[in-house]
């Protein structure tokens, strides 16, 4: 048993969880939609990668310049045609709509692609690894997934913090009605946020499909892990989501080292423990806490 190795592998795995979770966090933070189809959208990304990489006969990475814009456009379309309309009918409607979308995607994928597990062609990267000392082996693929997650989260955080679009997103997240009142065009803001959320989900799906296998029902598990990463890290904090994802990954791998049967159980227990001790999450923003506690902005 090698604890250092387990922690390293767990952190790398956590990066993948964070990559899936950041879109979920963004969608909830800005539009107040808990997108129950988020995991299924990630799996759709994996299937799209499968179709494109077999069609062109190239590793799935080569198809990303086509795959990501398609996913972004799909997110835009979902927001404009579905989520945006659902939002006008109260808080429950989006939950039902995304739940229905999840079921539809899973069943359509079963019809179109059968239930056989699939994997993606990751090229030479998928098998390469390097050693640290004598006992630690790091897969280049895992490291790439982790670094990609860090890069995506950093880019998102910097964009939100320092651009005009980012300010408008945060203003909308704080107070939708007032944002509209002071001139923010809320619909384009929502549409781009949804586009980014689906594009990051699809990217995560490509890593899921390259590292392991996927089938039409994989999305549900993906959603649970992503959701737990968001809640542990704290709603509204992207860095929190990264830490939340890593906490999940480390727990899963370290406990799995002791007994594989308890790995996923331990992850869910961690989630419950955080929810009990710090219901707002570890890094939640003050605004989100106030909102969860039902207080308005200070007068």
């Amino acid at each position: 048993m090698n604890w250092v190795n387990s922690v390293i592998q767990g952190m790398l795995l956590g990066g993948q969880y964070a990559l899936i979770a950041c879109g979920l966090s963004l969608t909830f933070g800005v539009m107040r939609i808990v997108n129950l189809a988020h995991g299924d959208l990630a799996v759709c990304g994996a299937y799209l990668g499968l179709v494109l990489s077999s069609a062109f006969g190239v590793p799935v990475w080569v198809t990303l310049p086509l795959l990501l814009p398609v996913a972004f456009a799909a997110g835009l379309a979902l927001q404009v045609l579905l989520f945006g309309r659902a939002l006008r009918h109260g808080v429950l409607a989006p939950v039902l709509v995304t739940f229905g979308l999840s079921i539809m995607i899973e069943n359509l994928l079963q019809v179109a692609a059968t239930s056989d597990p699939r994997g993606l062609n990751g090229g030479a990267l998928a098998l390469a690894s390097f050693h640290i000392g004598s006992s630690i082996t790091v897969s280049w693929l895992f490291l790439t997934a982790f670094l990609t997650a860090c890069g995506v989260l950093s880019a998102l955080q910097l964009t939100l913090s320092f651009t005009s679009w980012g300010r408008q997103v945060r203003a909308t997240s704080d107070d939708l009605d007032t944002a509209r009142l002071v001139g923010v065009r809320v619909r384009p803001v929502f549409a781009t946020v949804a586009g980014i959320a689906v594009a990051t989900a699809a990217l995560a799906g490509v890593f899921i499909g390259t590292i392991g296998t996927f089938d039409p029902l994989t999305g549900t598990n993906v959603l649970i892990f992503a959701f737990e990463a968001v809640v542990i890290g704290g709603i509204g904090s992207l860095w929190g989501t990264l830490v939340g994802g890593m906490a999940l990954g480390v727990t899963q791998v370290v406990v799995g080292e002791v007994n594989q049967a308890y790995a996923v159980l331990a992850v869910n227990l961690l989630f419950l423990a955080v929810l009990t001790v710090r219901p707002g999450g570890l890094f939640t923003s003050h605004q989100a806490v106030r909102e969860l506690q039902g207080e308005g902005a200070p007068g």
Partner: protein
Amino acid sequence: MTDAQPGPPLLEITDLDVFYGDFQALFGVSVSVTQGGATALVGANGAGKTTLLRTIAGAQAAASGSVRYDGSDITAAPPHRRISRGIALVPEGRKLFPSLTVEENIQVGAAAAASDAWPLDRIYGAFPMIATRRKQRASTLSGGEQQAVAIARALAAAPALLLLDEISLGLAPLVVGELYETLAGLRSTGATLMIVEQDLRRAMDACDSLVCLLEGRVALAAPVTSVSRDEVVAAYFGEGRS
């Protein structure tokens, strides 16, 4: 600029009906605002003052009637289009974005700005009290400072018509005095103001015309110089109606 004669109407509201669901808040309201003027909008709680301002800003839809601004009909225009035409609202209760800094709040206000006539340095010049707080979160400021930020956010849109809803609510008289001095400075630059104010004396001092709403209807509309305080109070409480 001659201030004796009224200029052309900048804003012309005709027969405006506004509903919240089944509840009618405004009944056939007609108000005209002259270019460069300052209009005080007074009335009891629930008279429809905030509703009228929000309808002008586009946050509330009109069921019937029209809002004409600077020569064109804007009754159905969304808020961002009205802002880029020069209408900005300082909402009741300030409504700052609490997680954003003071400067970011102001920058969001410039998202659909009519022009770049109000860059940040000019805004900070007009509100020195918030210049030193530009990097602080808006939620950490005092009430007066927050109100100044709310006005600054509206100014960032470079408005020709500035709508102000109860800017003195909950503030110390000294702070309110400072805010009104800033508004007087704004008027001298040619801005048109429409002010909802509970303090009748202050409203009549700061404005040149007055509109009193009573239960969603216009009870009195006149130049400030031609009405007495008693007439306004009578209209305010609906006394002397047949």
